[in-house]
């Protein structure tokens, strides 16, 4: 019990929080470093990491806190991206139109998927989310006007008036960083609010939740929609970042990647998936320099985390205090 008395004196100074703070400082200073050494690739890689971290955070909201395992979350990345891309191609270049429309479409899609899959449980839930994602995937392939299988290049990033230029890579990086922090804060408030207590309670014991008077379905559905919209936002950012959108953004492999990020980082906390996204995507990048078969190393690593450290990297860091 010595450790608990120690942590009481300085409760926030844990190895875990130190790590999170360090990570945030690195992320905040990265563009400066990139400017000094003149490496734009690194900046681009980390922009991608921030964007996918946001998607992982959104997945974690329903999976980690709500117990709703969505195996089709990449669909929202694609739908957000396509909504933006299609509007851009049709001449609607203002972000003030593109972004709300993209979020709205993602929200509606989540509403339909959620209304169906939330009536089921376990494997069926997973299969329905996957089925809808595959449906979105094949619909995108069928969109000949918008590149079909090959996807399409988006020539103009979202316009937000004269003083905001998303094509400025450093600015875009900081925009993604700020949005990620905002989303993390939003989700953190959400899971601790009354709404969040209902969601977490329903994960833990749904039968009891109904017995004490909660109509759980509508809360879970709302949570599902919020998660889909956040993921849609990261889809818009991703398409802006790559200036390109194609169906493979929505493939089930990408959905799997998002799950891996959440599990690897730790589903128990709001920030875990951010750590997971950084770890996963960096590893993938580094490993790809040595071998084409990153899975040979990533796979066993994920197994190790799933078997030995249920709380993911975040859980390991939190555990250090006791160890």
């Amino acid at each position, binding site marked *: 019990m010595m450790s608990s008395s120690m942590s009481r004196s300085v409760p926030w100074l844990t190895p875990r929080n130190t790590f999170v703070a360090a990570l945030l400082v690195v992320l905040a200073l990265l563009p400066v470093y990139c400017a000094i050494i003149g490496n734009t690739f690194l900046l681009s890689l980390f922009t991608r990491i921030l964007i996918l971290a946001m998607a992982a955070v959104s997945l974690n909201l329903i999976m980690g806190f709500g117990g709703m395992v969505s195996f089709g979350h990449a669909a929202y990345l694609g739908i957000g991206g396509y909504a933006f891309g299609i509007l851009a191609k049709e001449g609607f270049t203002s972000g003030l139109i593109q972004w709300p429309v993209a979020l709205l479409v993602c929200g509606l899609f989540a509403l339909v998927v959620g209304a169906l899959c939330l009536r089921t449980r376990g494997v069926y839930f997973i299969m329905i989310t996957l089925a809808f994602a595959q449906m979105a995937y094949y619909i995108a392939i069928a969109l000949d006007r918008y590149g079909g299988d090959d996807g399409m290049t988006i020539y103009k990033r979202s316009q937000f008036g004269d003083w905001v230029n998303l094509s400025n890579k450093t600015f875009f990086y900081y925009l993604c960083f700020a949005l990620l922090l905002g989303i993390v804060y939003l989700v953190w408030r959400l899971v601790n609010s009354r709404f969040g207590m209902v969601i977490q309670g329903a994960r833990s014991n749904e*039968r009891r*939740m109904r017995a004490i008077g*909660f109509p759980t379905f509508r809360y879970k559905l709302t949570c599902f929609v919020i998660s889909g919209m956040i993921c849609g936002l990261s889809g818009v950012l991703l398409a802006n970042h790559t200036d390109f959108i194609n169906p493979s953004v929505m493939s089930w492999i990408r959905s799997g990647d998002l799950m891996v990020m959440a599990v690897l980082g730790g589903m128990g906390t709001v920030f875990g998936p951010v750590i997971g996204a950084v770890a996963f995507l960096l590893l993938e990048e580094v490993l790809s320099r040595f071998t084409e078969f990153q899975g040979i190393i990533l796979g066993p690593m994920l197994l190790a985390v799933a078997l030995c450290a249920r709380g993911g990297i975040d859980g390991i860091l939190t555990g250090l205090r006791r160890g």
Partner: protein
Amino acid sequence: MLKVDGLTKRFGGIVASDNVVFEVARGELHAIIGPNGAGKTTLISQLAGELVPNAGRIEFDGSDITALRVHDRSLIGLARSFQITSLFPNFTALQNVTLAVQAHAGHSFRFWREACKEPELCEPARAALDRVGIGHRADTKVVNMSHGEHRQIELAMALATKPRMLLLDEPMAGLGPDESGRMVKTLLELKRDLTILLIEHDMEAVFALADKITVLVYGRVIASGDPASIRANAEVRQAYLGEQEAVTHV
């Protein structure tokens, strides 16, 4: 307060509730007893709305609630506790009870304020924990508590919903003699302001608490009356009490 009329529930060929009729008056503690498999839990599940009866009618406080859903029954003041402890293991005792309070504090589409710091949720929850005598353990995670404490939290949760009537499914199940004694004391106190329907195996507790007892055998009511008349009823003794000699000494 609660009126059950002709309630029938069949599972395939088995009749778990067979034309059950009884009535619980306001302020009464009404116990339902019966041997294992008599259909007691099936009965309470129908009262709580988890099972839909094949026939019959349930009336609560003058209105027909037969078709009402589980959460709606809870909201009109009919609270149940579970035979098998059914809590939220990774929440603290206080959080468990707070959820129960929250269920009755309007809708929960409130996304911003931290629920655990809202006094209007916490204070009634603390009061309910104090009432069942477990206030000192409020901030302990339920997963780290004993079975006896779980039963008490279970009761606190039912109380926190400010019910007009409690449906208690074997609150003494698995309790040691000391813990049972404490539970009986708590229930005696609750009895003063609440109508209670109690399903219980512990005869000592039933005869210490009940104003009225209904005996269920194979889904059928074979007797109903005050404790003395039940104890004297030959059919009841044969069907049920005969196996439990202890009861004659109560």
